């Protein structure tokens, strides 16, 4: 049996909702176990005193990347069927900055706010409420934004295709960046944590 299972018809639309639910619960569980149900832990990221978010997310990225690469190389995954989101360079950059600003201000990102709410944290509920209000407002003003929303469309591109280098080289470079990032991250953490302690005392 080859993956992606849904595209190969192992299960239909109905079952895919159940699968999505199970994966979602699993995702939330591991976010919580990584300590991401706490706004303090998440915000420490932006003050360089605790880079756990960076480490967990980057671990997920390289695990998925190396796994997908080798599984498809072995013929177990058909990568051409894996959905690649289309790139809209400027709108997505702006969107990322807005999400980042919201992350620092609110202390959560959308996924972790659900985790916080599920563990009963009041700020998590407030954050979720804000998300819903934001969705409604965005939906209502969308006609005004749609020109910008669809600008700088680049289609479904990937880094190897865009720069004309092999997938393997990109995989290796990202792995190097990750390992360097982990080592450097730990060093930065120690430095800033010491500074933060000094400032407190």
């Amino acid at each position, binding site marked *: 049996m*080859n993956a992606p299972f*849904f*595209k*190969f*018809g192992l299960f*239909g639309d109905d079952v895919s909702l159940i699968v999505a639910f199970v994966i979602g619960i699993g995702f939330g569980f591991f976010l919580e176990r990584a300590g991401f149900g706490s706004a303090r832990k998440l915000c420490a990221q932006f003050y360089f005193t605790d880079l756990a978010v960076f480490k967990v997310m980057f671990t997920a990225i*390289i*695990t998925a990347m*190396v796994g*997908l*690469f*080798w599984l*498809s*190389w072995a*013929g177990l995954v*058909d*990568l*051409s*069927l894996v*959905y690649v*989101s289309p790139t809209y360079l400027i709108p997505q950059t702006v969107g990322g900055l807005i999400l980042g600003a919201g992350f620092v201000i609110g202390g959560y990102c959308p996924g972790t706010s659900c985790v916080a709410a599920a563990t009963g944290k009041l700020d998590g509920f407030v954050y979720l409420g804000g998300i819903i209000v934001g969705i409604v407002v965005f939906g209502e003003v969308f006609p005004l934004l749609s020109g910008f929303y669809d600008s700088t469309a680049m289609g479904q591109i990937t880094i190897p295709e865009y720069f004309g280098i*092999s*997938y*393997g*080289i990109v*995989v*290796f470079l*990202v*792995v*190097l960046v*990750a*390992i360097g990032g*982990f080592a450097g991250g730990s060093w930065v953490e120690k430095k800033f944590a010491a500074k933060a302690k000094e400032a407190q005392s």
Partner: protein
Amino acid sequence: MKFSLSSLTLNQKLAIVVGVLGFLAVFAGSPYRGFTSKIDSQELASIVEKEIDHISPEELAGWIIAGNVDYRLVDLRKEKDFAEYHIPTAENILLPTLGDGQLERGEKIILYSVGGIHSAQAWFLLKANGYKGVYILRGGLEEWKDKVLFPRLADNASPQEVAAFEKSKLVSQFFGGTPQIGGTAVAATPTMALPKLEAPSGTQPKISGPKKKKEGC
């Protein structure tokens, strides 16, 4: 200094594993599937043998009348022929562009061409590329004409055949065809002209296939 694996922390071990996998990836080539693909000839042969790869014209006609949208009907003939006449709900995809991602591997795909040869070849191509639910319209457009558009009642038909003909007469008229009794057409016009592409009487199902779902997070 003696080096031993046990002196490494778990993080360092993981870093080494992913580093090695990443380094080897440089030499592994493209992870995308090429133009070659493996087939299970035994499985394909048994499908052909059991004839479960066929849809009869009557069955398809029933689905169209019922307004089903859970299938993709693919007309493999040239654009010109397609423009002249095609079975309602069909879309025109030529053989060389079959694998270009217009069809999803999990969809129920019904192929037809003039006879059965082109659709059988397309069936094999799709099957070999991992498309699951691929079917051939039995007898192609020829049989569609014989069975659905211009059903014929023999002069010496049995009562059962007459009863069945009454039903196919309605189906034929739904698709704008002309039922035939013996040598003569039931309707006023005795010719066997293909119906025009206007919507036939009755409710016409939408021509477009199921809408593509938006994916991503």
